[in-house]
């Protein structure tokens, strides 16, 4: 165990890129390590965990304890990356069976609360009405988000509507109107564009972020002042695949108060990929469904030949969207994408890729970037 200790020591030193992981499933612990800066893909991590715990055929949910002691889920690339990079020094991972998972546990201070009043909580839980079985976020599709909260005045709201992959119509109408502005000469009436109607059951209505009589100020970062109703209509339709509208809500009571904004680590994410004011930073919401990943880019479909329509999406400047049109989200496709990214010549022949893929599928750890020290499992070293 001397060797293992030494290993641990080196891993814990701050200049080392490896992160020690302690994974708990039921009563069992496993230990291994990951590269802090290049932890790899969630899918592969997931496979690895199942492999290590020898529970390959079980559906599980993975959670971790963050610096504040909150139990947070790991279910996509981004929160996986977040978990690994924020591990200080140890990453504690908790694995639950999917059917046994207690979703209510996720959230602020769940772990610490549990420790303090374990018995009381248990009784509480029994008395509470049965949980709605809410599935994991990756089973959902984002329909909208409020973005750029940090840079907008509190009276304004920037709403992003995700239409792609959504069967619902956008479903709202706009009209001309006048709004009152404060100018150096006092109040002044200026023409403006307003939301006039919501289509019942439409996307806009279902988000709850837009309402009748909200004034439209910008469409995808471009001010609508001075533009006609028809121009604004055309702009919105042209951006309908990824519509970001900045509104001044008619009802100012539900505004987000900036001071109470939660810290980034506790799950509140701001999505500013299409914002013209801040650099694209986090893509948290983009991992839910591959179809949703088209940030500002739309991919045209090119069909080669006239016979069997064979969808071969082209490689875009934004790599994340390159294969997004392919309906499957299967691992092989994801791996194919990774390969394409890592090795640009890999796309040259499809046959080759498939060969590589079939060999890789069996062992997902291939694509995990493992620190040179190798992987440890409670003292038993797994050599790859």
């Amino acid at each position, binding site marked *: 165990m001397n060797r293992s200790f030494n290993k641990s020591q080196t891993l814990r030193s701050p200049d080392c890129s490896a992160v020690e992981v302690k994974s708990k499933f039921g009563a069992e612990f496993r230990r291994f390590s990951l590269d802090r800066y290049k932890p790899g893909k969630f899918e592969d991590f997931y496979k690895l965990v199942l492999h290590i715990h020898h529970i390959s055929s079980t559906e599980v949910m993975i959670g971790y304890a963050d610096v504040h002691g909150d139990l947070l889920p790991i279910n996509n690339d981004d929160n996986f990356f977040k978990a690994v990079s924020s591990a200080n020094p140890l990453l504690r991972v908790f694995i639950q069976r999917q059917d046994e998972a207690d979703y209510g546990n996720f959230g602020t201070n769940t772990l610490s609360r549990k420790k303090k009043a374990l018995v009381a909580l248990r009784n509480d839980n029994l008395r509470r009405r049965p949980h709605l079985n809410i599935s994991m976020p990756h089973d959902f599709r984002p329909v909208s988000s409020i973005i750029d909260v940090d840079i907008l005045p509190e009276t304004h709201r920037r709403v992003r509507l995700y239409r792609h992959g959504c069967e619902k119509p956008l479903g709202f109408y706009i009209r001309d109107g006048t709004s009152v502005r404060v100018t150096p000469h006092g109040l002044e009436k200026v023409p403006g564009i307003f939301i006039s109607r919501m289509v019942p059951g439409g996307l806009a209505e279902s988000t709850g972020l837009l309402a009748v009589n909200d004034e439209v100020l910008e469409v995808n970062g471009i001010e609508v002042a001075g533009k006609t109703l028809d121009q604004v209509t055309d702009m919105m*339709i042209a951006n*309908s695949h990824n519509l970001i509208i900045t509104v001044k809500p008619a009802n100012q009571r539900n505004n987000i108060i900036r001071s109470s904004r939660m810290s980034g680590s506790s799950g509140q994410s701001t999505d500013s990929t299409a914002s013209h004011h801040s650099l694209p930073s986090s893509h948290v919401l983009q991992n839910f469904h591959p179809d949703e990943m088209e940030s500002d880019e739309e991919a045209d479909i090119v069909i080669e030949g006239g016979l069997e329509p064979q969808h071969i999406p082209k490689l*875009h400047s934004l790599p994340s969207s390159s294969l997004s049109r392919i309906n499957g989200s299967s691992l092989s496709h994801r791996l194919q994408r990774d390969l394409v990214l890592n090795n640009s010549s890999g796309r040259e022949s499809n046959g080759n890729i498939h060969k590589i893929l079939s060999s890789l599928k069996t062992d997902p750890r291939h694509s995990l970037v493992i620190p040179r020290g190798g992987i440890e499992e409670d003292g038993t070293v797994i050599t790859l």
Partner: protein
Amino acid sequence: MRRFLRSGHDPVRERLKRDLFQFNKTVEHGFPHQPSALGYSSSLHLMAIGTRSGAIKLYGAPGVEFMGLHEENNTVLQMHFIPGQCQLVTLLDDNSLHLWSLKQRSGTSELQEEQRFTLRGPPGSSPSATQITVVLPHSSREVLYLGTESGNIFVVELPSFRVLEKRTISSETVLQRVPEDYSNRRPCELVEAIQEHPRNPDQILIGYSRGLIVLWDVQSNKATHHFLGSQQLENVFWQRDGRQFISCHYDGSYAQWPVSNDNRQPEPLESKVPYGPFPCKAISKIYWQVTKNGLPYIIFQGGMPRASYGDRHSISVIHGSQQIAFDFTSRVIDFFVISNADPAAEFDDPSAMVVLAEEELVVIDLKAPGWPAVHPPYLASLHCSAITCSHHVSNIPLKLWERIISAGSKQNSHYSNMLWPIDGGTNLAPDPPQRDLLLTGHEDGTVRFWDASGVCLHLLYKLSTVRVFLTDVDPNDNMNPLGEDEWPPLRKVGSFDPYSDDPRLGIQKIYLCKYSGYLAVAGTAGQVLLMELNDEAAEHVVDYAEADLLQDQEGYRWKGHERLKARDGPVRFEPGFQPFILVQCQPPAVVTSLALHSEWKLVACGTSHGFGLFDHQQKRLVFVKCTLHPSDQLALEGPLSRVKSLKKSLRQSFRRIRRSRVSSRKRRAGNIAEVQEANAKFDQGALQEMELAPVQRKIEARSAEDSFTGFVRTLYFADTFLRDSSRHCPSLWAGTNGGTVYAFSLRVPPAERRMDEPVRAEQAKEIQLMHRAPIVGILVLDGRSAPLPEPLEVAHDLSKSPDMQGSHQLLVVSEEQLKVFTLPKVSSKLKLKLTALEGCRVRKMAVANFGSCQTDDYSENNLTVLTNLGDIQIISLPFLKLQTRYPCIRKEDVSGIASCVFTKYGQGFYLISPSEFERFSLSTKWLVEPRCIIDAPEITSNNHLHNTSGMEHTGRKSRDLGRSSGDTGEDERKSGRLMEHALLNDEKVLKEIQSTLEGGRGRGDPIPIYQRSRTLSTRIQELYRKKFGKKSRRTWAK
């Protein structure tokens, strides 16, 4: 600066841009919309036309044109040239008078408004007291006589418009010597006519509406003769010698009155109702022209028998036993007769009659037997039949040009060969650098070929496609000229004929190959005609083929019009373009796109259902492709044409609303993000339903199930790398309304086996743009990023052969974006998202070559793009960088935007009215605009001077001395005259000097109504701004 908002700040590029691009609206072609007044200067040989929107246009010799615009935009009621001067006075319907001058500046003449004036009575007087009915510019050039509704005649001085109150001719003074029983009938109701005595400028003839006519002596300020007419007066006309005049009346009669010193109150010599005895309509204007042979020409407007011919717009010409009532196609605004310009001549000897009708200008040669019409070199009625499409071809080879002209000249044989009689001014514009053709397609199935090289848009040749089809009206049994015994002797003149026999004949697309002379013309009922130029008349059978665009699609029923029936057997064709193949699309929907490749001998056409490729060498359909989306119902309903009934569109709207309500699944399909036309219709229906709901727009993404997604918007032939990067091949590209691009690789057999082997086509690519916006243009750029040349262009050594070494690029222009893809692997390279950024949509797109005005050898290709906001943007190739933009058309002017065509060298045309094309230029190098000069009247008007004043030998009064000496320069003459007057020491003359001096003072400090340096285009811009509150943009006037 705004114009460079989105471009970099590379100073070199900015300088180059200034050398390349410049926006000007240069000239208006065609016939002025809603003309309302006509004027003519016999000394300048200039004609002036005023319109209901306040525009005035002056025309002289071909190429000599001026345009002006009254700031008020009021109807021009009258226009009068000041005798012997480059000035004219206009009267508007707000009772204002405007003085316009042709001023010379840097070698050319410019039309400017100098002065304006509104006649005001004393405070408290009724407005009718000063409502002007008649304007007479006196030959002295010093005064205007203004007849009013009150019967008073005011005299104002020129150019100051100072009212000379002492010289006012009030109706009371006129009535002083009229018999009492006559004066009791209140004969001085309204001044209908004032005419100056042709030989004695001191006498003017005044006609009042109730029939009284007096001859007034200006010097003694009293009436010398009274002519007591009993009929309501319309007009008067002096005979040349001044011994007689003619009056014409409301009851359709005219009377001839003698003027002699013996009888101060004569009876008419002759009174006649030419089209009696039944009640006739008024004769509103009459000319009496004397000739050497003694028989006068009597020319009058109107006078037709009220009951049977009261609706005709006629002008009758009577010369001895010859009499013709010219029957015009629209209301006659006014007319004049061109006669011997020498006022001293004894006879008029009229040569031509110029008639301004509401829709066209007709000139009749009065010298040639039979009085044929003269073919006007300008003012063509573009809208003889409504224009449905236009096509511009630059730089026509001389050979083709001559053949078209010769074909056209055979059609014009019925025209007089008289030289154009209105020949004032000198055209200084350089000869057009190249021969350009503008082809217009019309609703009646004709294609007109216009010479668009220069300022005068001139009809070269007219092609009719009607002969190929069996229509309800047999073209042979159209109205035969009426027989000799017909009375009245009506003769139809003019070509305006807005009524189409069959709307299916309408022309929708035209493509002319200037090298081969092949012409493809497509129409409303899915017909595509291929034609060849033949210099001889010929009789042959037109081959027929059908293209079933629905193919295997089942269960559709076309509810639109039937296809046109082709004529069986051989058809006789005139020399010119003769059809040899008719392809009819099935269903017979309107042809929405057309492409012709004369080298491969292929023609492609598309409708709202699909597109097809036809091999016109082997006369075989190569393939068809159905683009119809299965859920698209509207595409089957009928033709997408402007004759679609309102009822139908409302029904459709309601059906769509209902559909969107019934099933929630369909709801996303029922959106309005599609063709603007359908949009408007939907709104119509929705508005009715929602009653007073505010105007609102639905925000909805386009879906594949929208209507008319299969509508083929553009077709394009290219020899490029479609399949792999090593071998290029012919290809056909098609773009639809739903944002789909289809690419077919073609195999065209080599020339020696062209007839033996079939042309093969295979679909190679299908690109679905995710934003699904309609595709308005497809273009392939060669290895040097230059657009591929037109077919046969290289073969004729007129273009560099395309670079087939470097990689080609595909440019797809949709209504929303411009996007460049690589070839053969279609991957997006760069794009410009116009709609997302600016909210505008691309309406028209063309490639234009811009030459630098500084260096002769530099030129570059750019895209010119017209948006739905009426802006024109110039976008660089291949990097899609916005170079500059100009506001061009009002965004409300939908027909103007829809009619716009670009030329290959950065000019363009669009309709500003049904009958007028505005020509604009984006290039600094290619600029076609009128440059002309009107000679100062000293030379040309000498004779006139002699006419009015040069009667020394007839014992004129002293003040004529001055006038006769005025041959040197205007100013000198004026001062010289004053000196002489002063010497004469005449009291009256002194008074006049005083008034002249006062006027002079006024003249020295004129009110600057217009800044003098303003050009025509800025004036139009001003007008627009005024009317529509558009902000002034610096981008306009460079």
